[in-house]
């Protein structure tokens, strides 16, 4: 049964319902973010470990040029290696009837007899039957993007040989959760796919019968990935081994790990800010409650209520807010988490993903909000409840005011009152400002993601990569071969490029990536400085992506060891000639001619950048498909489009979510600040009204304080927002991508606007209350 005091509690809560609701919403915002990101993280991690086990994700990976199958047996005998599986993988260019854009693909040989590693999950259809060489599986993203059902046909060109295949099943596999076409920046399921086909026809098409060019290994207990990789490299070196690597460098695993890191960050940073602000607001509101109820507490104590009972009574106030906020937060977090998990599934092709909110997550959420509420209110409640009743019975001593340094002689009386009030409680004034500033900062973070990504795309696709089509070859071709490309109808220019896998070493550090050999006067692929101005590729030496230089710790002038993993396999010291600004991936750049010299090869290229007349594009795809040397074709316009299709919607959703969250904080802080001011000074203001002050003047005293707080807080918050973005940018950057630190003026403006609107709204609500101040009531009652 509810006691009388509980009824009092209910009415106390009701009297400040606006504030209670605002605080509960702020709390709910933090909890929702926490539950959403932690639940998604846990679901993804659970799914990952389950599918790695179920589909046997290997521990070490290696690519090579070509080796006979007997070499695989030698690998199996290497110490530490438990099992080995060798297969053939080849790039392909694909035609789907009715789709006019180029489609690139990766064809994977289905191992004979089911396969030890990288088993596939069948979403629909069936596994290709033994002996039926034309039957293939295709990745589920492709089928979904084109809205197809198993049973359709594809024309696949491997190694220049065209063949017709029939898709009998739709599949996914842990090694291809993240499907990135070579040279693209986000998955594009319409123009990239994975095909699984029987080993025999694939080996035949690639002239690798009885051989392999990719190997996967699992390790025995206690074996180290680094040791195994070294042993594998030793064996594969004569066969064009390109360097073995562990899971942490496997592209799908790598991207997932990055996502986990981001989710973890999201699960701590934002909830911490929100719970902190909620705790502060509770502190203010409950502190005010204790001040107004000082006499009531003394009276109840006079009648025999214990300190503990009274403290508990007021802590229930906190408990109600905390429970309401947590409940709302967990519910919306679960809902948002399900949405986020769905968004992840659109990008990461998991065989399955069971989203759920674990009870531990709910418990942690509750513990977090209880801690925030407790920290905020325990002290004021205990202090007030523990006060001696004889002391508490006496009216509180009037606040101590003094002249403040803010006062200038020409200020009016109301302005002085504002100044004195701010200065009298510096901690509270500063905390209110901090709260408003914090919400401004979060608003900026909300906008930053899309600003940064827009800029990244702009830099990459409108400044650096100016080609219309990127063509890659199966094998290096002579530069002369490009004449045939240039002579195709619609092609205005073709610039050759030479790409080679390489390992860079400097001091103790090393990193495996590629070197690209570019044309010195190239106009289709340019290198940029920090201001995005094109820079000239020097005749000698190597130019590195700025992030790569930082990772390796090299500066221009240093001598970098470049270990080429193909061709001559030369190991050379090369001078670092400069660094260039890039936001996606890390690469080394040389003049093509210098790189070819290093490789001890002639004037060859592995690909070409093409400038094409827009109307000629469709016909050109058709022609390129007929060129045997061409392994794949990628279109830049299509890349931009697919980028926005895949990511922009998600970015927008996240930005909207962040803005909504930040607006909650802003309204919560601003509204509470005014309400508390009104409660503290209602009597004083009513007295002023009795003395003949107008409503306007009285409103000015109250709202002037708020306005001052907000106007100081906004610029501070804009600065804090920049700092927060800087922190996020630095902790999120990896060699995969770096979101540039770019904040548009419009993002700053929007943040300030949201705060101003929240302030105006709160001012209107409270202004109505000022107009209805009950003068008689206020003067009659004792405080």
């Amino acid at each position, binding site marked *: 049964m509810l006691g009388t005091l509980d009824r009092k509690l209910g009415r106390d809560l009701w009297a400040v319902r606006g504030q209670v609701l605002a605080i509960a919403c702020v709390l709910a915002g933090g909890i929702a973010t926490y539950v959403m990101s932690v639940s998604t993280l846990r679901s993804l991690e659970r799914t990952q470990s389950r599918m790695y086990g179920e589909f046997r994700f290997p521990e070490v990976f290696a690519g090579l040029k070509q080796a006979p199958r007997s070499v695989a047996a030698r690998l199996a005998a290497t110490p530490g290696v438990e099992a080995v599986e060798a297969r053939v993988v080849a790039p392909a260019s694909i035609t789907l009837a009715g789709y006019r854009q180029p489609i690139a693909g990766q064809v994977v040989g289905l191992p004979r007899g089911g396969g030890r590693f990288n088993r596939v999950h069948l979403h629909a259809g069936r596994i290709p039957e033994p002996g039926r060489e034309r039957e293939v599986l295709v990745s589920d993203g492709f089928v979904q993007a084109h809205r197809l059902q198993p049973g359709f046909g594809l024309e696949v060109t491997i190694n220049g040989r065209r063949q017709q295949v029939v898709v009998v099943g739709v599949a996914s596999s842990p090694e291809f959760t993240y499907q990135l076409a070579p040279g693209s920046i986000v998955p594009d399921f319409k123009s990239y796919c994975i095909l699984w086909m029987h080993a025999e026809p694939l080996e035949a098409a690639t002239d690798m019968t009885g051989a392999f060019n990719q190997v996967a290994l699992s390790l025995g207990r206690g074996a180290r990935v680094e040791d195994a990789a070294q042993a594998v490299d030793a064996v594969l070196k004569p066969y064009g081994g390109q360097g073995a690597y562990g899971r942490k460098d496997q592209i799908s695993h790598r991207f997932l790990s990055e996502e986990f890191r981001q989710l973890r960050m999201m699960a701590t940073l934002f909830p911490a800010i929100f719970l902190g602000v909620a705790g502060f607001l509770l502190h203010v509101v409950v502190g005010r409650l204790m001040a107004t109820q000082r006499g009531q507490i003394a009276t109840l104590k006079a*009648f025999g209520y214990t300190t503990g009972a009274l403290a508990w009574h007021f802590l229930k106030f906190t408990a109600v807010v905390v429970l309401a906020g947590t409940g709302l937060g967990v519910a919306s977090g679960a809902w948002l988490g399900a949405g986020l998990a769905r968004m992840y599934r659109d990008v990461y092709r998991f065989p399955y993903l069971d989203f759920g909110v674990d009870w531990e997550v709910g418990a942690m959420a509750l513990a977090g909000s209880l801690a925030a509420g407790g920290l905020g209110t325990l002290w004021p409640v205990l202090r007030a409840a523990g006060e001696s009743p*004889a002391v508490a019975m006496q009216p509180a001593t009037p606040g101590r005011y003094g002249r403040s340094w803010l006062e200038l002689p020409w200020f009016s009386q109301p302005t002085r009152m504002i100044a004195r009030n701010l200065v009298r409680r510096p901690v509270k004034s500063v905390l209110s400002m901090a709260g408003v500033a914090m919400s401004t900062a979060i608003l900026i973070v909300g906008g930053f993601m899309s600003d940064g990504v827009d800029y990244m795309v702009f830099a990459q696709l409108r400044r650096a990569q100016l080609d219309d089509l990127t063509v890659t070859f199966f094998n290096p071709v002579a530069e002369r071969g490009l004449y045939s490309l240039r002579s195709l109808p619609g092609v205005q220019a073709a610039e050759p490029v030479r790409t080679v896998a390489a390992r860079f070493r400097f001091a103790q550090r090393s990193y495996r990536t590629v070197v690209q050999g570019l044309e010195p006067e190239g106009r289709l692929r340019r290198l940029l400085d920090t201001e995005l101005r094109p820079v000239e590729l020097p005749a000698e030496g190597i130019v590195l992506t700025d992030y790569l230089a930082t990772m390796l710790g090299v500066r221009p002038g240093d001598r970098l060891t470049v270990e080429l993993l193909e061709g001559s396999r030369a190991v050379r010291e090369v001078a670092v000639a400069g660094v260039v600004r890039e936001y996606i991936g890390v690469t080394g750049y040389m003049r093509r001619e210098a790189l070819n010299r290093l490789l001890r090869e002639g004037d060859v290229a592995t690909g070409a950048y093409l400038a094409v007349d827009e109307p000629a594009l469709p016909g050109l795809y058709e022609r390129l498909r007929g060129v045997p040397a061409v392994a794949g074709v990628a279109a830049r316009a299509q890349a931009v489009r697919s980028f926005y299709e895949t990511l922009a919607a998600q970015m927008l959703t996240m930005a909207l979510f962040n803005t909504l969250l930040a607006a909650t904080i802003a309204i919560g802080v601003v509204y509470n600040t005014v309400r508390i001011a009104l409660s503290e000074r209602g009597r004083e203001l009513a007295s002023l009204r009795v003395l003949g002050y107008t409503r306007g003047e009285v409103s000015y005293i109250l709202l002037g304080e708020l306005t001052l707080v907000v106007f100081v807080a906004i610029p501070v918050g804009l600065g804090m927002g920049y700092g927060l973005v800087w922190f996020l940018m630095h902790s999120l950057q990896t060699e995969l991508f770096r979101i540039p630190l770019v904040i548009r003026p419009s993002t700053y403006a929007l943040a300030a606007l949201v705060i101003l609107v929240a302030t105006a709204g709160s001012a209107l609500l409270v202004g109505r209350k000022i107009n209805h101040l009950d003068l008689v009531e206020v003067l009659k009652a004792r405080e």
Partner: protein
Amino acid sequence: MEAVFAARAVTKFYDMGEVRVHALRGVDLELYAGEMMVLLGPSGSGKSTLLNILGGLDRASGGSVLYRGFDITAASERELTQYRRRHVGFVFQFYNLIPSLTALENVAAVTEIAEAPMRPEEALEMVGLSDRMHHFPSQLSGGQQQRVAIARAIAKRPSVLLCDEPTGALDSETGIVVLEAIDKVNRELGAATAVITHNADIAGMADRVVHMSNGGVSRIDLNAQRRNPRELHW
């Protein structure tokens, strides 16, 4: 007659930085069972201080106060709370009702933690407020609020009723109604009652009148006959 309170050499001082304010300078006083006592004295003479010490709201700096043989000056915080909860009813000058609770609920807040209380309705009836039970304090006049406060004080059937200027904020008409309620409760429940007032006219309703000045008891008058508050006016 049995002494409910026996105060011996009670002192109370407040240290205010450099100076020490002596609120009580050695008070000796008894309060007898069923008695009606009025405390008179100028402002600052220590009346409220003494009453707060008797009621266990405040602690004496020296001396002893025995409540039926139990020394409340030596009691722990917990014992004092229990003491107040079981035995003491307070009425304050400014009523000190809980504004968010109705008249009935204000009384119930106390009966809920008492041992053998009367029903809240009964207490309100004793002070003549049966028809205002569901009103909030802000909807009641000062006198009505003070009567609710008296109902709240007596609902637990206290053995002592301590009233600090219960009529201080009221006009004489209303004050008399309130005093009648206190008088009635004293007679019907037999609670030893102490009433602080500035108003010498009120002294007529007492069995004994204690005059205080400068932190001590200066004189005690015995009234030959206790007068009904109705007959008082000021």
